[in-house]
């Protein structure tokens, strides 16, 4: 792997950019790997990367049925924050956020992490109480957040209307080190780093079956032939249910569509991320100038990666009251991703009833922000069978009633 640097840019500028080479290899699958990860999205690639970096396991294949980062990694609103209420969630999301801080240097790939600050508006008294509570919880968890006044909200976001007739802004939960990152670059950066460690990233390779021997995982059948493995990690977000069925167990998960949209690009007008959970919408401005807007999820099972007009209308109508200046913006495009929702809106990072098979899913609407932390914990779980970061997120928590209830804590939009 050639290192990217200012020197490399200068050198290639003098060579007509002929020396860059591929960022990652496209190898033929081997017959056997120590570890197979299914799903080359952010979480799958991060898991592979930390398996190699932290545990020296590099005989790893990452199988992807489509193309790298083509699922929810490419379909989110790129927001990174860790202001969660419950201790296990705060721990894993804060681990992720802190890894994002130095991810570009670690991967030698610019993921454009921009800690511009994330603001969660409180527009009802219930939200005021909820976010004040979260701020106190975060102080105990070592997550840097604070409760800020409406005047401070207006100072940080001049385009906001804080005395909207229906939902005035009563304050906000402010996480100054939250922000955004370039979503594709996160997947590409991890892929490049994995490939450099000798791992195989195999695209256009759909898993069609999971082989079992004596109650243990033995390998997978794919559209490119059977591949054996010692350990298998299923990291496929919305399609987890389909793979779980192949492995012979069911999950407490339902897949629904979550959608987002972007406006035409405009001049810089808002340099923080604003989430308004009561009215159900969140917005940030991309480096290109587009307003990136996210809304709510469908309530019914859905595997079609597209949105619906009435959700767009609902989200935009809600945001227009809080941001009157966007009322005349044209919307450029909208898209949907399939999110895997658990009952308590917290993820599952767990061993499964099938020995040697691990699953990482259920991130619901909070997948992108957690990529490095999820990969870190999942790699530890797969390598050692135990991880402090993921212990609370086991599948058995449903049976045992130890929910990590974030659906109330985070409102509706994660």
């Amino acid at each position, binding site marked *: 792997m050639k290192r990217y640097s200012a020197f490399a840019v200068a050198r290639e500028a003098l060579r007509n950019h002929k020396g860059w080479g591929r960022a990652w290899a496209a190898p033929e699958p081997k017959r056997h790997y120590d570890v197979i990860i299914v799903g080359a999205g952010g979480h799958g690639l991060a898991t592979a990367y930390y398996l190699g970096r932290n545990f020296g396991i590099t005989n790893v294949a990452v199988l992807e049925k489509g193309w790298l980062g083509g699922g929810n990694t490419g379909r989110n609103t790129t927001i990174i924050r860790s202001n969660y209420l419950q201790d296990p969630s705060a721990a894993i999301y804060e681990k992720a956020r802190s890894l994002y801080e130095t991810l570009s240097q670690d991967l030698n790939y610019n993921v454009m992490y921009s800690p511009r600050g994330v603001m969660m508006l409180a527009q009802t008294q219930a939200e005021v109480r909820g976010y004040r509570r979260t701020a106190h919880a975060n102080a105990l968890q070592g997550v840097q957040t604070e409760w800020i006044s409406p005047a401070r909200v207006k100072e940080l976001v001049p385009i906001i209307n804080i005395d909207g007739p229906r939902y005035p802004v009563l304050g906000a939960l402010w996480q100054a080190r939250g922000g955004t990152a370039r979503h594709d670059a996160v997947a590409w950066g991890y892929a490049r780093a994995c490939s450099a460690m000798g791992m195989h990233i195999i695209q256009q390779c759909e898993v069609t079956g999971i082989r079992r021997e004596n109650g243990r995982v033995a390998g997978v059948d794919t559209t490119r032939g059977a591949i054996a493995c010692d350990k298998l990690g299923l990291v496929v977000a919305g399609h987890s249910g389909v793979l779980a069925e192949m492995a012979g167990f069911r999950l407490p998960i*339902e897949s629904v569509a979550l959608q987002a949209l972007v406006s035409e690009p405009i001049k810089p007008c808002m340099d923080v991320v604003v989430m308004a959970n009561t009215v159900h919408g969140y917005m940030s401005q991309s480096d290109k100038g587009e307003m990136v807007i996210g809304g709510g999820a*469908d309530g019914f*099972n859905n595997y*079609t990666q597209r949105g619906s007009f009435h959700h767009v209308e609902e989200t935009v109508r809600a945001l227009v009251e809080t941001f009157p200046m966007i009322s005349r913006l044209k919307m450029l495009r909208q898209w949907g991703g399939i999110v895997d929702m658990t009952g308590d809106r917290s993820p599952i990072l767990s061993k499964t009833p099938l020995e040697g098979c691990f699953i990482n899913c259920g991130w619901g609407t909070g997948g992108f922000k957690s990529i490095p932390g999820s990969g870190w914990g999942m790699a530890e779980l797969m390598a050692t069978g135990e991880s402090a970061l993921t212990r609370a997120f086991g599948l058995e928590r449903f049976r045992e009633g130890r929910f990590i209830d974030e659906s109330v804590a985070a409102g509706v939009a994660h």
Partner: protein
Amino acid sequence: MLILHCPNCGVDADETELAPGGQAHLKRFGPGSSDEDFHDYLFARENPRGVHFERWRHAHGCGKWFHAARDTATLEVFATYSAQTTEPPQAVLDAIAARRPGWTWRHES
């Protein structure tokens, strides 16, 4: 937009009029059943990529519950039918089988 025919009032209702109620035809396991059954009843869902039976309520219409058979991968609606049943009527199963050759309804109970 999803449009479902409400078998109670006969209206073709838009998605915005309806409230989704999750997977249909769950068999209830209550007091006295095994932990395994109770867990599955509460949490485990089929979540298929394909034919799915679900409950809906015509919330902003007649207010009544009904069942729908739908494909989650294509959004095709096969049929809607009464909520007063514990499994899909044969006519609904036949309608799905006609559209999805080889498909069979499997129920875990």
